[in-house]
Each structure stands twice: as structure tokens, then as C-alpha cells.
């Protein structure tokens, strides 16, 4: 029996590319969904050539909610696993002053991802199986001055995934929340990040792959982050508000 297809939403990112290669190397067909998806034609050829699987491209705009039902309908097959890697870091400075930009960050990290996963969750539930993966962020566990607009939107997504998992827990559909710490990608290029805490996109892909196999609920990519975030979340607010993390 051939393995079910894996849908990757927001397929243009480094993390998404690593995920596509990981699942393709295990024999899954791949559905890449992104805006201007034709720019991923070289990746499509690459994944298909290296791993001998079918790779299809699908135009998808996470912010254009009206197109989501048609997008799901248009997939060659309903995937067995759907991974949402859509996200936008933005710049905190801009997000503080320009509310249009702030709203775009919030919509890109929360509204869009939550809405498409909600649709897919219903379709998976109806079919009777499936795994949903949301790439959130450790930034969503506590708002910090340096990136709280991004963090707040990821927090919304974390809560959404948690609630969705709770709703579906008695059924066959599973939800995985991924909380990567710092990852070495285009998004973080030029940022001075501590090496010991920095994961490679391939590390994220390996961790997500294991999590979907073992049906884990919430994963961190580097285990050290679980400890770091436990400490950060345990700080009393009157102490936390004076930190600069």
C-alpha cells in the first residue's frame, strides 16, 4: 500500500522545504501549497527526482479565506498529513507603529493557519483519519517586548491547536503542535542567535516526522527549549516585566 500524501502549507520556507524532503524520503507523495506556487517548480522537480515520489503544486493564499474551501476541494487527494508552516515574523518596531503591518503579522500567524487547519480537520474527521501539524513558536508561550505581536499571534495559534486537539482527542484525527526555538532559516538570517539553541531546518523536519509517527501532542525541536520555556513561563509577572529577553 502506498503511503498517504503530505500537504505542506506555506511551502516556500526553508523549514517547509526540509519537511517536504523528509516525508518524500520516506515515500510519501508531496503537495506543495504556497502563493505564486510556480516559483517552487525547481523544488518540485528536485523532490520528485531525489525521492521518486509524485509532487504537485497548489496555489494557496492563507489570508484569502474565501478560497480555502476551493483549495481543499482542488487537491488531487485529501492528504493523510497536513502541515501548516505559514508564518510571518514581521518587525516588532513596525508592528508597534503601523497597525496595518501588525494586523498582517497577526493574520498570517493565526487567522490564516487556524482557518485552513479547521477546514482540513473537518474533512479528516469526516474521512476518519489524518494528522494535522501546526508550526507555532516558543514565542507564543509568553509575550516579550522584543516580538510580542508575532508572539501573540503564535499564542493564538497554540491555543487553537490545543483546543482542536482536545475536540478531536476521542476520534481518529490527531493534532501536533510544534514549538521550534531558533531555526537557521532565511527568516532568521543576520540575527545573532546562540549556536547551542539554534536548530537547522532538517532538525525541525526530523522532529516533526518523529512526532507524526509517534502521535506526539506538543514538541520542541531542541529539548533544551522545554526547560528554557518552563523557566520563562514560571517567572512571576512582576519579575518578568522587568526582564529583557
Amino acid at each position: 500500500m502506498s503511503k498517504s500524501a503530505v500537504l505542506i502549507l506555506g511551502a516556500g520556507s526553508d523549514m517547509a522545504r526540509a519537511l517536504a524532503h523528509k516525508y518524500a524520503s520516506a515515500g510519501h507523495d508531496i503537495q506543495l501549497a504556497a502563493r505564486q506556487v510556480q516559483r517552487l517548480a525547481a523544488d518540485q522537480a528536485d523532490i520528485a527526482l531525489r525521492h521518486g515520489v509524485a509532487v504537485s503544486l497548489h496555489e494557496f493564499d492563507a489570508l484569502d479565506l474565501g478560497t480555502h474551501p476551493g483549495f481543499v476541494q482542488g487537491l488531487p487527494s485529501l492528504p493523510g498529513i497536513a502541515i501548516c508552516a505559514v508564518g510571518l515574523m514581521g518587525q516588532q518596531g513596525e508592528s508597534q507603529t503601523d497597525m496595518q503591518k501588525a494586523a498582517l503579522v497577526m493574520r498570517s500567524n493565526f487567522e490564516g493557519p487556524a482557518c485552513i487547519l479547521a477546514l482540513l480537520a473537518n474533512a479528516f474527521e469526516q474521512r476518519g483519519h489524518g494528522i494535522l501539524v501546526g508550526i507555532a513558536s516558543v514565542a507564543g508561550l509568553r509575550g516579550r517586548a522584543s516580538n510580542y505581536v508575532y508572539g501573540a499571534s503564535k499564542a493564538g495559534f497554540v491555543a487553537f491547536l490545543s483546543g482542536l486537539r482536545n475536540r478531536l482527542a476521542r476520534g481518529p484525527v490527531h493534532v501536533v503542535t510544534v514549538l521550534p526555538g531558533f531555526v537557521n532559516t532565511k527568516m532568521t538570517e543576520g540575527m545573532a542567535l546562540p549556536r547551542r539553541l539554534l536548530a537547522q531546518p532538517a532538525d525541525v523536519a526530523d522532529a516533526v516526522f518523529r512526532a507524526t509517527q509517534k502521535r506526539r501532542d506538543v514538541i520542541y525541536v531542541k529539548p533544551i527549549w522545554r526547560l528554557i520555556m518552563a523557566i520563562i513561563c514560571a517567572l512571576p509577572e512582576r519579575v518578568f516585566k522587568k526582564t529583557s529577553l
Partner: protein
Amino acid sequence: MSTVSGWGQYPRLQAHLRKPQSPEALCALAQNGGPTIARGNGRAYGDSAINSRCTIDMRALNRMLQFCPDSGQLVAEAGVLLGDIIAAFLPRGWFPYVTPGTKFVTLGGAVAADVHGKNHHKEGGFGAYVDWLDLVDHSGQILRCSRSENPQLFQHTLGGMGLTGVIYRVALRLRPVSSGWIVQKRQVARDIGQAIALFEQAQDATYSVAWIDCLQRGAAMGRSLVMLGEHATPADLPPKARATPFAPPKRRQLHMPITPPSWVLNRATVRAFNALYYWQGARGPGHSLVDWDSYFYPLDAILGWNKIYGRRGFAQFQCVIPLAQAEAGLRALLAAISAAGAGSFLAVLKRLGAQDSPLSFPMAGYTLALDFPVTAKTLALMQQLDAITHHYGGRIYLAKDSRISRDMFHQTEPRAAPFARYRQASGAAGAWASAQSERLGL
């Protein structure tokens, strides 16, 4: 600025690294005026792929684009590693025609250095299997170059050390193979004359290479283990392995965990290692079946082996001496090396075939390659070896070089001046330069 060095970790230079994510971004970098150089996976030993003003890291452009199973032609972006090609295509019965001693080189790097393998005497260099390539020139245009389209640019790009433009895409022909195994035949040569005789008798062997004990003097000077190889057919394999002739070899990957102090590597340890290697090889079986990874890439099993030479880094000396002078030239080189007592763990001798190229390394003759930790003494020895190479009409390999002087380079390399003139005339000279090309006046 980041600190950048080649595989020898010498010299270490400050450079601005840029990593284009798309061909458009690459073309934009090409036009930004002022010299830059493309860099692959950093396996050239010296300063071939470093430009302090702008060094273009090509590793994000690493997609395989097309494969034709009838011709074996693979089209891929230049940042693809040879090891990735093997991982994807050996299970389908294809292998690179030419491979250097590490699979961690990029396609673009292999073309730029026109690398050779253990089959050069019979099948030529890497460039011989490039059907065409797409080159980004100084105006940011992508030019298709082949033996019929822009042929001059094509020829100057094979072995041109990245000094004609940035290699963006390559169409490489792969070799059909029926297993991932090599039938190896090992012969013992008591001295350099016998080693050369064994190579000359083995002209029909697909692969040939010798490990040479560079510390022996007198009658045993140049004692070697000459290793010949052929691709195994399923019939050559033990019955159990025949059903899965491409099964990946089981190998442990070791990391070099620390940088040892440089005194670990001294005359006594190197002599002991060489003697042990020779006697173990001389006693072992003459024929054996070796998996592709151990056969072609024995050192890849130790990630970061370049750290063994300590923090000061190391330099590789690799020259080729033309056939007619080979024995005399090799004797002179070995005499100088053993007199200095500066042998290396791995000294490699190899017969090369004839090749006519604007700047590629190979010529009909014998190539000798050895590593030295960088010290004042070994740098002086290598200058002496340069002079011997020049005396016998030989040349040195740019992909390994980090230290030859401009004068000596031009004396050994009459092709350098015409190559530099070609760069001037084509407009490439102002756009592409490496620390090496500036050092050598290329």
C-alpha cells in the same frame, strides 16, 4: 564579515559571505560591480573560493532539475553535492563518471576545478562529462555554454576556478553501473620504479591509484601499494548480496572531536603509521570487494579530518610531472621530502592521462599529492618542491594550492598568461577574482 578558509584551514581570511536563494538573486549579485567569487562546499584546500569583498555561497542553489534515463544526463543546480547525486541515483544504477576523493564537493566546484579521479588515465576529467552548463556572466545574464554554444567560454570555465563567471546549472552525464561495489586488486611496489611500471601495465584498469610511503630513502624510496579497481557486476558479489547490489554500505561516521596539539603529528608517528599501513597492505589479500563509499571516499568517514593537523592548518602539495620525466622527477621530490623528514599520513601517487585545456590541472604523467602541517619548515620545503616540479616540466594543482608564489606559478604554468588575457578581453577580469587569483595574477 566572517572568517573563511578552505579545507586546509590555511589561510583564514575575513570575507563578506552572500547566499543567494534564487537564480534571480544570484544574477543580481553578479552585477553589483567589483570582483566576487563563487564558493561551493569549501573543499578546495586553500584560497581558491574566497574573496573578501564578496564571496557567493552557492549551497542554497542545490536542486536537481531533470534526469534522462536514456542518456544518463542529470541537470542540476551547481550547489548540489556529489554525495547527493550518488544518494539519489546509485539506487537506480547510476554513478558519477569522475569523482574526486571526497563526495562533499559541489557540482559547481567540481566543474570549476575540473577535478579528476582514479580513472583519469583512461576516462579523463570531470569536465569531459559535462554536456553543457549555464554560466552567470558579469552582466548578470545566464549564458548556455557547451562544446557548440559559446565553446570558448565553456572550455575556459572547465578548470577555470570560477574566474569566468558563476556556474549556476550543470548538465552532467552519469555512468550506468550494475552494483555499488568495486573489485579491488592490490599490488605491492618495492620502490618508485616498480610503482610506475605497475601503473603502466594497468593502463586498461578503470581505476588506479597508489598510496606511497614518502619517508623511505635509498632502495625502498617510493615503496607503494598500487590499487586497481573495476565496477563489480552482480556476478562478482557474494550470493547474499546479489539481490540488492545497490544496498547502502554500513559505515560508522566518525567525527574528529577535538583539534589535537600539533606535536601529535611528528616524524616518528608518521613513520610508524606509514610502516604499519604498508605492511598491513602488503600482507593482506590481493583481491577484495570494496563498497563504493570506502573505495572512493575513505576519508569522508571521518568528518572534519582536516583538524588532525592542528590549529595552524595544513597545506596540500599536489603536482604532476610529465611522463618522460616522471621517474626522475618523483625521485627528486621524494628525496627532498624524506630528507626534510616531513612526510604526511597520506601521500598519493596517480597516473594521469593526456588533457588539453586552458587551465585544468591534468597532463599525461604522474601526480603526487601530500599534506603538510603549515610551519616555516614545511612552507620552505614546498617551495623546494615547486622548484623541482618546475625543473621537470610539471605544474601544480590550483584546487589544492594555498601558497605558491606568483613567479613560480607563472614559470610552471605557461597557460596562465593566455588565460589572464582571455579574462581581460572577455570582461571577466574585473568581475571575478579570488584571493588565489589575486595572489597568482590570473
